[in-house]
């Protein structure tokens, strides 16, 4: 019932928060000639990803918004890859689930925490010099330390508060009526960097942002003030267990330069660069774990979705 109402509501106004869903397959590879095919499914609170790894290498992925049901979100994430590559569950040698909905992936053989998976994924994406991973997801923010093999050595997370998460950024995007992908670039289109908004809470920041607009701030300046507040908030989390060289950012907010550049500036450390979509780190790590397990124990029988 509320689903239809939500749709009716969304038809009435544009959804500024809606980020782009992507799917990709490596044109230089073919899964049919691969020995080991493994899949990682990351059902997050806001986005879900499916990553296919062939013989230990990234082959294809699909990233989309999480729906109201975790099992359906997992199925849809896989379906995106299936449509693109023709790969079916029957061809896959092992599936590992991760993310907050990891136990609700109906066709997975095993569930591994997203903390372990993000470290493993970041180790692949950024190489074995990655030591500190900042994962800014939809509903939480994590600081993960790992060794040269991508094994977690320490971590800290905030999942009590939307400040410093993608969900918080979506709220601001809606409030400013500016598409979420433009927030970062726009935050630099200001004459002078404003003070950060003082409210940590997204609910309070909303009223503060409205007050600033009334007080003559341009939208870009409000966005800059919000990005700065988010950066400060994230840095205060990072500082609790420290940041080591080999700093890597995963999750959706890694795509927002407005927050990333400000974090780098406060820390005085540049984040490592990668060509791979930062949102797939968890699912990629899960697929890599599956690959290791298949190499060790052999392929598993598929579980029907």
């Amino acid at each position, binding site marked *: *019932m*509320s*689903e239809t*109402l939500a749709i009716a509501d969304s038809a009435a106004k544009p959804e500024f928060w809606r980020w782009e869903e992507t799917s990709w397959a490596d044109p230089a590879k073919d899964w049919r000639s691969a020995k080991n095919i493994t899949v990682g499914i990351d059902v997050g*609170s806001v986005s879900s990803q499916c990553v296919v790894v062939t013989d230990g290498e990234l082959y294809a992925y699909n990233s989309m918004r999480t729906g*109201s*049901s975790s099992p359906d979100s997992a199925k849809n994430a896989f379906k995106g890859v299936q449509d693109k590559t023709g790969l079916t569950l029957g061809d896959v040698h092992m599936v590992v689930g991760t993310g907050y909905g990891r136990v609700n992936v109906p066709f997975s053989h095993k569930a591994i925490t997203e903390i372990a998976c993000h470290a493993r994924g970041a180790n692949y994406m950024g190489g074995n010099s990655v030591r500190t991973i900042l994962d800014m997801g939809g*509903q939480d923010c994590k600081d993960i330390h790992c060794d040269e093999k991508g094994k977690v050595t320490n971590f800290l997370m905030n999942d*009590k*508060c*939307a400040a410093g998460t993608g*969900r*918080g950024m979506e*709220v601001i995007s809606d409030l400013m009526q500016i598409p979420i992908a433009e927030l970062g670039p726009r935050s630099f289109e200001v004459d002078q960097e404003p003070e950060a908004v003082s*409210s*940590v*809470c*997204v*609910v*309070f920041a909303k*009223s503060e942002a409205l007050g600033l607009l*009334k007080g003559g701030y341009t939208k870009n300046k409000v966005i800059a003030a919000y990005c700065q507040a988010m950066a400060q908030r994230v840095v205060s989390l990072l500082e609790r267990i420290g940041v080591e060289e080999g700093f890597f950012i995963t999750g959706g907010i890694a795509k927002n330069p407005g927050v990333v550049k400000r974090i780098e500036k406060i820390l005085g450390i540049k984040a490592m660069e990668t060509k791979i979509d930062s949102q797939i780190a968890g699912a990629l790590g899960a697929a890599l774990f599956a690959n290791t397990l298949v190499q060790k124990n052999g392929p598993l029988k598929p579980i029907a979705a």
Partner: protein
Amino acid sequence: MITAGIDVGSRTVKVVLLEDGVVKGKRLIFPGDLDGDVAADTAYDEALAAAGLTRDDVGAVYATGAGRKMVKFAKDSVTDMSAGAKGVSYFFPTARTIVDVGAEEGRGIKTDGSGKATDFAGNEKCAAGAGSFAEAMSRALQLSLKDFGDASLRSSKSIPMNAQCTVFAESEVVSLIHSSVPKEDIAKAVLDAVASRVCAMVRRVGIDKDVVLIGGMAHNAGFVQSLKAAMAIDEIRLPEMPEYVGALGCALMAAEGGR
């Protein structure tokens, strides 16, 4: 002497006109797009007009609330805590613990019976435990705030809300709706959650009888019920115009001319 108290809150502006200890008029407006100072002017003039008075009839104006500094014509301003404690003493001199839950703030105030605030603890950084939390959830449930409170009274279930953050709780409410949990059970879950956050703050100043609830959330019968359960007390006293208590306290202080 006639005095006025103006409470510029985060969501509404309240005005109370007082003559020799008797309320002569009151007015509440939602400023919406109005600036705080304009809203205060508007609310004040409307209250005066309704009471058949002019600004010249008023001896002193005091202001309170988050936007109290915006009331340029006020002679003095006092904190929400002082105004709340003073206003409560007008109704209930026996009050010792005041729970104040407005749109963006929830707090516990300790008072000594003379109308002075002696201690307080409140939220500063987070909307959990404030009226806007309940408001956001009633919106997600598509119920008016009144229906939301009444619905909660019809439930006897205790469903724990995992999310503390308003933003996350909204998604949690949506997923409860999707899994066909009755609206009254969700409403109770939400109000229980707010009550438990508020109670945690009030405990920091201590819970002593009589306990009085002020602020807009006092109109929400479901919340009052949840708060009683959270604080493990039988009675919470409710003033007749709970959202005006701060403005009233202000007008009382203006009459005394002290702080």
